[in-house]
């Protein structure tokens, strides 16, 4: 424990990453000012024909999918009883909580009147809208994540009484978390059901909600493996023994689960094509792109995960997790901006502006910095010695 505190105190300030992050923060602050004084058009390439861009496709859709590790891990440990992965819960919940918080933060930029975001819940409810359900579930789930994460913060702050009360809610929060996640992960896919004329038939399917939900499980499993890999590289000094011991078992266990989920997801996609009789589209240019996404980022990592599990090779598993994460991002971008508006002529298609990308990088950097702050201080990678009853 003294190692950890000493390491924290002795960290150099001017590391390459810190300098890079500082630059991004300054640029981000400037872009924020521009966004809120000159409007969305001044910092993005969004137009009436392309009202949604990477802030929705990446920040929101990909962000929510990759934050799924929270509900997946807490379900694995608390509902399926996999106690051997216990050390993975808090990092996963932290990633989830930060992920969803950043999604809401990104919405403040994307939405035209962010101060009216409470309106759908407090003033006028558009209950025919899938987006209403997404908003309600995300708000509730953010609360759940906050509560699930709070024991770590409360332990750090020494507020043991409140902590005890919150810990008693664990089972309830876990189940509620799975319910809410099922609902909003699938509903993010359902958003696009409303635009069959705009989304390419290989991606548009009545099963979009199922595709989004199942792939969110694979995304969550893979993000936990990826985040654990990164944490091990950078924050090993802050980890306790249990965390280090479970490093490879988590990879094997989550890797096997990811192999199965990816296989099921692949099958569902094929069934989807069969049911809508869309085989002919596979032989087009869009078909090649679809097959690229499916074979390179679903089949391939599924294969890699299964080899890694069978041969007890964690390196292959960790590589597979990166590819899966990229695949989820590719899928969400395909559905929202790439295969969306496919009818629009090529010279009028959307591409994000450098400022849009800048704001996204700003948001991600804030997330990484907050993650680093928390993980180097609060009992996320280690168990607080005063609270050994963390079951």
């Amino acid at each position, binding site marked *: 424990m003294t190692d950890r505190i000493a390491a924290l105190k002795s960290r150099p300030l001017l590391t390459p990453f810190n300098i890079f992050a500082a630059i991004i923060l300054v640029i981000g602050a400037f872009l924020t000012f521009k966004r809120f004084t000159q*409007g969305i058009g001044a910092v993005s390439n969004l137009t009436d024909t392309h009202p949604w861009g990477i802030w929705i496709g990446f920040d929101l859709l990909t962000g929510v999918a990759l934050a799924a590790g929270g509900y997946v891990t807490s379900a694995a440990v608390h509902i399926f009883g996999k106690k051997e992965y216990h050390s993975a819960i808090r990092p996963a919940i932290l990633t989830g909580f930060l992920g969803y918080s950043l999604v809401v933060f990104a919405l403040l930029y994307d939405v035209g009147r962010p101060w009216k975001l409470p309106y759908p819940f407090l003033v006028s409810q558009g209950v025919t809208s899938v987006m209403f359900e997404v908003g309600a579930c995300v708000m509730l789930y953010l609360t759940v994540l906050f509560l699930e994460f709070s024991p770590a913060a409360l332990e750090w702050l020494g507020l043991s009484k409140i902590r005890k009360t919150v810990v008693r809610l664990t089972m309830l929060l876990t*189940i509620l978390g799975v319910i809410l996640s099922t609902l909003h992960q699938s509903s993010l896919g359902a958003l696009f059901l*409303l*635009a069959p004329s705009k989304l390419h038939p290989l991606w548009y399917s009545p099963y979009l909600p199922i595709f989004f939900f199942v792939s969110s499980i694979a995304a969550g499993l893979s993000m936990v493996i990826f985040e654990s890999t990164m944490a091990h590289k950078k924050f090993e000094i802050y980890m306790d023994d249990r965390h280090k011991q479970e490093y490879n078992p988590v990879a094997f266990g989550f890797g096997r689960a990811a192999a199965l989920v990816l296989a099921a997801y692949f099958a569902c996609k094929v069934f989807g094509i069969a049911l809508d009789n869309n085989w002919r589209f596979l032989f087009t240019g869009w078909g090649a792109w679809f097959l690229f996404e499916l074979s390179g980022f679903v089949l391939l990592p599924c294969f890699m995960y299964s080899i890694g599990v069978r041969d007890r090779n964690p390196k292959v598993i960790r590589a597979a997790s990166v590819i899966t994460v990229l695949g989820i991002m590719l899928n969400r971008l395909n559905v929202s901006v790439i295969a969306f508006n496919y009818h629009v002529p090529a010279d009028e298609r959307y591409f994000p502006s450098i400022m849009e990308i800048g704001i996204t990088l700003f948001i991600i950097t804030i997330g990484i910095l907050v993650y680093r702050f928390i993980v180097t201080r609060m009992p996320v990678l280690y168990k607080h010695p005063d609270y050994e009853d963390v079951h």
Partner: protein
Amino acid sequence: MGITRRSFLGWLTGAAGVATGAKTVEAAHGHFNGYPDSYAILHDTTLCIGCRSCEAACNTVNNLPKPEKSFKDLTVLDEKRRTTPHAFTVVNKYTDPHTGKITYRKDQCNHCQEPACASACFVGAFKKTPEGSVQYDASVCVGCRYCQIACPFNIPTFDFDDAFTPKITKCTMCQPRIEKGQLPGCVEACPMEALTFGKRSDLVEIARERIRKYPQRYIDHIYGMDEMGGTNWLYITETPFEQVGMRTDLGVTPAPEFTSGALSIVPMIIGLWPVLLGGLYVINKRRDEIDEHEKEEAVKTAIENANNGGKEGRHDR
């Protein structure tokens, strides 16, 4: 202008009085055939000469800023335009690549019977009125632009350059005017009677009659009858619809039906998941307890055997 058939119809229907109060149309699994006496507009593109008088009238009636190029400037028709925050409607020119024949078509909100925008809006900013128009309420709008994603006709526009009060804009069917018994601005301004205002059912009859009378002049289809579940802006044309920028692959399913299935699953998941997950928890917990129990039994038996055999007892693991 003297009494024309168009304005007579306008007076008739205007005099019939209009109900106030709007209702959101929620199509769960029923089919909505539209409010019975709702108004609509029939656009006959064979009569349109691309003079842009309708655009000018719309601009005036809605107090919109005057554009850079005047409405009398017909060179703007050389480019395809879409609605913008200051242009609720535009006229576009379509030239047949083979024959060189020119057709003009006015584009604006089609005031769908079951609007995709109303279905999409999570703050209920859009409402389908009994008069037939689809109204937008900027006071609740959050600016999420899901309505733009949803509209199959790409009509709603959003002011991306307004930092403080950006909102969606679109044709209102001049609701305040029709409530007073007047015609919508564009209909009144059109010198060629390419636009006819009246009850939707009457306009359908008129359109059918025209097609029946002049079969060589019209394609036998009233666009808007069934597209997306039916709209309150109907089109008849001589040039095929795809060639005047209208999609013919939209189908007849009303937009809300695309998402009603996904929404109706929500209560099912809420009802079933707690039992499913709680059950899994109990099953796994029980299995762990049994495993623990069996382990303890095994250890006990091993110790007994060891003691009986006189060997060294094993410690607990």
